């Protein structure tokens, strides 16, 4: 069984302004099904999708995964598995592609006013829901307004914060007027699933609505669902994404050995995850291809360093600020970075299936990730020298350095007790940092207790924890802001006016190239100041059968075989 720290790949992106220019791609990316070829299905009546073809055996693509959607209601869903299903059954205005770009999905064109405030989307022709009702601008407006006002939906209102008005100018034209010209408009539209108004307007209790019919407009429609067992989808052949298979079944395996065994024996055609320990053996299996790559939505592991200053401690919010004073010294943190052997952590903890990390802006953010930065080399001798110079001597020769006042440097290290990677990372850190005379006292904590010592209490020294990231870097950058120290979003207590200023700049910069440069600069600052030590970016590990289906997207910058872009291209091997 799997416990994950970050449950969803969601958002909050709209909470924070981030900037990418309002120039959505006019041509679809290579991963997207060519929208130009999508027939405007006016002459093809929907009977083809209603009745199963009697002639041939339907092609059923079976996917094994360890999770299961928590709910079919897109408003209340939290798990990433839920979002995978929503993305197949519902359409959104934009699709987030595997190369990190956004392509238009429901709309065939978009027009943005010069001030960036008025967005006019023209919908594709012939759109309809799975029950045959046409999808019009009214449905889009209804859905967005629903998400905006329903406070029982945990994430959705956050995407629509800057929507001042949403109107249907004609049955095919949606006009969104923003209160501020946000640079990440596309990112806020990728999870706003368009719901059929004629069904949802009758729902009384939105939070408890189970949505078991799940009528959407996407390339697949729900056929059968048993929570924690399986989700069966049927292809909608006249959808503009033109799915090739007839059915997709997602089957839940609570035991990862069973998952691996299922693909070896051909009981499933693809698995979305596996323990790193089986990768080598599975590579030897017949007719199975194992693929690894940068995940679509990463779980970033990070080592959090308490830099909260007792002088500015958010006492009113429960701040304790008991971090070791050495951690507030830049030289000390840089020495810790030099003493951290990321390569070894990757080899031991991930069995090599990861890339060394730099900052919270992970490599899966593709164009926003600054890969030119020079990381701290692993060099304990240099680290020792730096600590000597910075005034942290080991005067009594017991192997543990002391603060200037003579107190030995014993740091508390906590991590969530449900983490699978943190215990070994902690052991390795203890070993590595002992070499430079920094002693760690390891204590795993219940995740909830960890929250309470973390922030805004700042009652810890070092934590190993993690983040799930949005496609837009705005949110990940915001956790380093001075303003977020009292809110509990800042985990480190880091405060840097220069960084704060750059953050404001990038959140209003609508030129994508300029915004990127600002964001690159911000990453440079974060790495220089060692706000976090990011040991690794774990790779996604997936596998598929080579003898049943073909067309999996494995060469894109990011890997997600269960993403809609991959699943509409896959077809059975004749």
């Amino acid at each position, binding site marked *: 069984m799997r416990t994950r720290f970050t449950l969803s790949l969601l958002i909050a992106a709209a909470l924070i302004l981030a900037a990418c220019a309002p120039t959505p791609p006019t041509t679809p990316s290579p991963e997207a099904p060519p929208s130009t070829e999508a027939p405007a299905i006016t002459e093809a009546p929907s009977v083809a999708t209603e009745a199963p073809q009697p002639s041939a055996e339907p092609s059923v693509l079976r996917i094994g995964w360890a999770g299961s959607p928590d709910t079919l209601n897109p408003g209340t869903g939290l798990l990433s598995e839920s979002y995978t299903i929503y993305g197949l059954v519902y359409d959104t205005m934009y699709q987030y592609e595997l190369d990190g770009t956004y392509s238009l999905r429901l709309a065939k064109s978009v027009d943005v006013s010069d001030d960036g405030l008025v967005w006019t989307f023209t919908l594709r022709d012939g759109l309809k829901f799975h029950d045959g009702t046409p999808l019009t601008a009214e449905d889009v407006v209804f859905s967005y307004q629903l998400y905006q006002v329903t406070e029982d939906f945990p994430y959705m209102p956050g995407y629509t914060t800057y929507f001042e008005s949403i109107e249907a100018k004609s049955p095919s034209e949606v006009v969104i007027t923003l209160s501020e010209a946000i640079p990440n408009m596309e990112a806020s539209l990728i999870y706003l699933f368009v719901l059929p108004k004629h069904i949802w307007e009758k729902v009384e209790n939105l939070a408890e609505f189970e949505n078991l019919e799940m009528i959407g407009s996407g390339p697949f429609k729900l056929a059968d669902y048993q929570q924690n067992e399986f989700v069966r989808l049927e292809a909608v052949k006249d959808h503009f994404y033109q799915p090739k298979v007839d059915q997709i079944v997602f089957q839940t395996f609570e*035991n990862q050995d069973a998952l691996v065994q*299922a693909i070896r024996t051909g*009981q499933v055609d693809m698995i979305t995850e596996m323990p790193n320990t089986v990768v080598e053996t599975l590579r030897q299996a017949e007719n199975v291809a194992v693929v690894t790559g940068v995940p679509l939505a990463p779980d970033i592991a990070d080592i959090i360093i308490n830099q909260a200053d007792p002088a500015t401690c958010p006492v009113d919010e429960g701040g304790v600020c008991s971090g070791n004073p050495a951690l507030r010294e830049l030289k000390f943190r840089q020495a810790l970075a030099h003493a951290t052997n990321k390569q070894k952590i990757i080899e031991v903890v991930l069995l090599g299936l990861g890339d060394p990390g730099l900052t919270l802006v992970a490599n899966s953010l593709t164009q926003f990730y600054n890969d030119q930065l020079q990381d701290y080399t692993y060099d304990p001798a240099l680290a020792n020298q730096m600590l000597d110079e910075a005034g942290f001597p080991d005067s009594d020769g017991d192997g543990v350095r002391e603060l200037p006042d003579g107190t030995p440097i014993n740091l508390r290290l906590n991590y969530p007790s449900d983490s699978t990677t943190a215990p070994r990372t902690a052991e390795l850190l203890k070993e590595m940092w002992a070499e430079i005379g920094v002693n760690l006292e390891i204590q795993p904590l219940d995740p909830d207790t960890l929250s309470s010592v973390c922030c805004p209490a700042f009652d810890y020294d070092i934590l190993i924890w993690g983040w799930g990231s949005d496609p837009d870097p705005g949110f990940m950058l915001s956790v380093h802001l001075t303003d977020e120290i009292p809110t509990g979003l800042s985990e480190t207590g880091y405060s840097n006016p220069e960084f704060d200023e750059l953050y404001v700049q990038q959140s209003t910069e609508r030129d994508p190239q300029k915004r990127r440069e600002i964001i690159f600069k911000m990453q440079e600052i974060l790495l220089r100041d060692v706000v976090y030590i990011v040991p690794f970016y774990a790779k996604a590990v997936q596998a598929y059968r080579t003898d049943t289906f073909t067309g999996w997207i494995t060469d894109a910058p990011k890997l997600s075989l269960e993403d809609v872009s991959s699943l509409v291209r896959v077809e059975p091997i004749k």
Partner: protein
Amino acid sequence: MPVKPNSPEAVLKRYRYLAKKVGWALFTILFVIVLNFFLFRILPGDPARAGIRDPRLTRQAVEAIRVRFGLDKPVINCFESLNPVKFGACTVNPLDTQFFIYAANLLRGEMGISYHSNRPVSSLLVERLWNTLLLIGAGQILAILLGIALGVVAAWKARTPVDYAALIFSLFAWSLPTFWLGIVLLFWGSAVGLPVGGKATPGLSFLPASEQALDIARHMILPTLTYTIVFLGEYMLVMRSSLLDVLSEDYILTAKAKGLSTFQILKDHALKNAMLPMVTIIAINLGFTVAGALQIETVFSWPGLGGAIYEAVGRRDFPVLQGAFLMIAVSVIFANLFADLLYSYLDPRVQTD
């Protein structure tokens, strides 16, 4: 002077015994209902945060979740929360506290809404309960039948190679770690083409019922086999030693002296008495059966009650936990009650105690 079985005194005694046992059972259930509520509130962890372990949830969103599930109300008069202990006003309307809302819901037969899936707990648990009963029911019946048979054979052939072989096998089976045996069987089973997980092949709903049943049966083979092997040993060992005890009694010797065949001795004289300890362990095991075999359900992805409990603990999904624990407690209590009553039938001496 012995009381005649059907005399008024004996009937009265039997009813009084019955009433006492049922009364205790009801009292225990009531106790469990109260304990169930406070037990989970004493656990550390805020359900509104633990269920959704996403730090990016805004405060407003967390607050909305708390209001939706009534977690903003005091736990009970004088206590805002139990962990950490926070005292509150004692004058609040009791009907506006979490405890009384919980109790009132139970009286109406409602167990609340799952924090995690937003589904009513009762329908969620009943669905899981049937799956568990199907799997564990089959496993228990097989284990009991085979266990008794093996135990009888071993006791009958006591201190022969047959006995030793059965004994060693049972001890070995009993001490096997369940999950380990499950994984070994999973690897073996997948090699011979058996399904490795789930209750049924998804998407066969268009097939006739008989073929669907066959499909479920195929999925049940491995988990049932695991369950049978693990539980068989216990039944065999108890049956064997109990029967050996009985076989050393004088009346068995008398029966032998009368020239009865071994089969007749076992069937008419020994088995009924030797079954008494078996009834106890079967009844208790059946009660716990409802809790599911968590490990087996996990290894074979069987959508049963054990898995539901495991998931709910991690998510602090109190309504599901309360419902599941209540279900288990009630079934254990009733299984025990049933064993008590069966005892008084099997062994009339019991009720005179």
